[in-house]
């Protein structure tokens, strides 16, 4: 009854096609142009629906269950270019937690690489995760060229890409070796790579379990890395892997010692520092 009453009340203000004041300020710029990747999950109204689901449900839930502690979100604040987000992988909870850790603007334009054989083997599951987390099928075995091509298309059309270069979840929380696709992608698209490290999600939802358990989670986001002149894809992949390991190691100790001026300078954003 309450719904009917509300619909009636709203109906009173219904103005299909009527003249509407056109002076309302245009939406603030922020969202990139629609992706040229024509996958339905990246188009309206799915984008808006996902935005509402993530902001209203997934992010508050992830924060409530994990007491999420995020360090380094500032690195993503000024990123105008699409970036490759790279993280260690220990749990299915990683994606939700990492998305919750991103600044709103970065989250809205982030696509997640999801194991094609695991999530997209069953069409309904693929659709649900695509809607919920903005995933796209990322083949772990074979077909590397096709995957790299579709990934680079996403990056080139303005989407950030979150991938787990270990290729699978760790059983014991230890990080595995990164597959070299990260370096290839960064090389091809010239995108900066943002190392991320998530700790604690193996307690929230370890491999094999299908439900969440509350546990504290820390996410650390590192300084964006760019490929150096002459640096090969594999060497760059190793550097990214080291950066993620460093983020994981540094949780209990300050990253930089010295007086505040040294710490401040060490944390300068590369773009802003060079602008000065």
């Amino acid at each position, binding site marked *: 009854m*309450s*719904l009917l009453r*509300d619909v009636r009340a709203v109906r009173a203000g219904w103005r*299909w096609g009527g003249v509407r004041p056109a002076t309302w*300020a245009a939406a603030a710029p922020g969202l990139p142009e629609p992706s040229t990747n024509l996958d339905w999950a990246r188009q309206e109204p799915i984008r808006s629906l996902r935005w509402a689901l993530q*902001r*209203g449900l997934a992010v*508050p839930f992830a924060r409530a269950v994990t007491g999420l502690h995020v360090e380094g979100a500032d690195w993503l604040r000024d990123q105008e270019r699409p970036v490759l987000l790279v993280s260690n992988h220990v749990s299915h909870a990683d994606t939700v937690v990492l998305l919750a850790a991103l600044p709103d603007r970065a989250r809205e334009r982030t696509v997640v690489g999801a194991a094609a054989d695991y999530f997209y083997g069953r069409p309904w599951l693929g659709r649900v995760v695509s809607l919920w987390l903005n995933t796209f099928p990322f083949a772990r075995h074979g077909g590397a060229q096709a995957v790299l091509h579709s990934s680079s298309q996403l990056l080139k059309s303005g989407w950030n890409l979150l991938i787990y270069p270990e290729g699978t979840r760790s059983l014991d929380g230890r990080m595995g070796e990164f597959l070299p696709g990260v370096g290839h992608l960064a090389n091809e698209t010239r995108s900066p790579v943002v190392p991320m490290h998530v700790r604690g999600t193996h307690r929230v939802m370890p491999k094999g379990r299908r439900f969440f358990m509350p546990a504290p989670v820390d996410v650390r986001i590192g300084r964006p890395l760019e490929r150096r002149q002459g640096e090969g894809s594999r060497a760059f992949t190793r550097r990214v892997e080291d950066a993620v390991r460093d983020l994981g190691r540094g949780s209990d100790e300050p990253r930089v010692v010295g007086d*505040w001026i040294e710490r401040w300078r060490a944390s300068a954003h590369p773009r802003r520092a060079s602008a000065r």
Partner: protein
Amino acid sequence: MGRPGAVIEIDRNTPPVLFHYGEGVRLERLPLGSRVVYAPDPIEPVAHPERAIRRALAHPVEDDPLKALLRPDMRLTIAFDDLSLPLPPMAQPDVRQLVLEEVIEMAAEAGVEDVHLVAANSLHRRMTEDEIRHIVGDRIFSTFYPDHLYNHDAEDPEGNVLIGTTSRGEEVTLSKRAAESDLLVYVNLTFVPMDGGHKSLATGLGSYRSVRAHHTVDTLLHSRSYFHPPDSALHHSCIRQGQLIEDTVRCFHIETSVNNHSFPAIANFMQKRETDWTPADQAAFLAVKQLTDLAPADVKRAVFHSMRAPYGLTAVHAGQVDAVHDRILETVNRQMLVEVEGQTDIVTIGIPYLGPYNVNAIMNPVLVVCMGLGYLFNTYRGRPVVREGGVVILSHPCRNEFDSVQHPSYVDFYDEVLSDTLNPAEIETRYEKCFAEDPWYRQLYRRSHAYHGVHPFYAWYWAAHAMQHVGDVIVVGGERETVHHLGFKCATTLEDALEMAEQTVGRYPSVTHLRLPPLFVADVK
């Protein structure tokens, strides 16, 4: 260029009007001929905030450039406003972060070694790590927290000093660190005309001893209103205190203002006038209404409190406190003022889920009074929108719920003090000192995240002017017992409330609905 604020008259074609209802919303039909006052559209933000900030620091008003004031061997204290504004909190980056980063960058270039950042939270609760991090950003937080970035402790006997007494006998205390600094930089966010200027420093880094000088029933009764500083005894007192501080410490004031873009895209319908609602806005309203009708209170609260507003920086000025504040007020008034012709018999106000003192907490009944009769009633200059002896109708669930961590003294204030008397002056005389000096509240303020023991008194005094001015207060949809405990009347529906109000103001009353937030100040002619 956005539209200015507007007063529209309800006719047969006017859609129902949005009323905030705590962590919920309602659409209500007002009687034909009623007026609805809408805030102006958000004014255009500055295109390059960082550039504007750098320019303000390099070309201050009636002061030297900040760079010229910095030297390596100095003690530099940078204070900034706490989380009580803006409301809802600003989406990152907060403008305070942008300003602080520029100031700190300059301090680093000048080689200033001794730098402290202090959140000027006065008698408000200590902010949590995450709340501080949200305001200052990751980079500042990881560089300074916790040793050189912290909350002001107004109850630290070693950390506060008495710096003098004003010509009117008002004591002025200040954080010792600030008082002994070679330069005190204050980073201000002026959200409404009440904020900013001397008030920020005099209260933000003061203690109970200095705040009690102006947070009195008498002063607040002579502040008509707080949103128009020239007519506010509270602000006059703060100015006297602030001038004394300026005579004691070298101050450099940086003040910013933001527009009133208060809601993110998902809640855009709250920002817009109902006549502007698109089908998407109408659908969003329906979805929010149904969800808030059904969802448990905790879930609603978590969702509402996670909202971050996409405010835009509209002005930034630096330099001497008064000169800077005058310029900022021009911009703030440009954003907020709405001309309203004459007073009205009945004013209706929907109380939103959030006020300055319940960020990440329940809005308890005392805060409902503070928000409705303290803040929203006072959003006027000239005369109140409601005539003397008129009726204020508030809409809020007004449940007997308190956040035990943030508002412990509020619980006792509600149970013990309000059970005895509702008269602000009597409450002040008989109870204030006892709560203000209670060692347990003091402990909770200093070590936990509780508001100071005296805070519920101030929240109540804040409403003293409205209580004296109006003939009746009716709360629509409130919990009956709680509303009666506060001394008000309770109604189930707006229609009932209007009927009840007629008993006070007579038949065929004039009705004005203040459709806020987004906030505005009614310039009543």
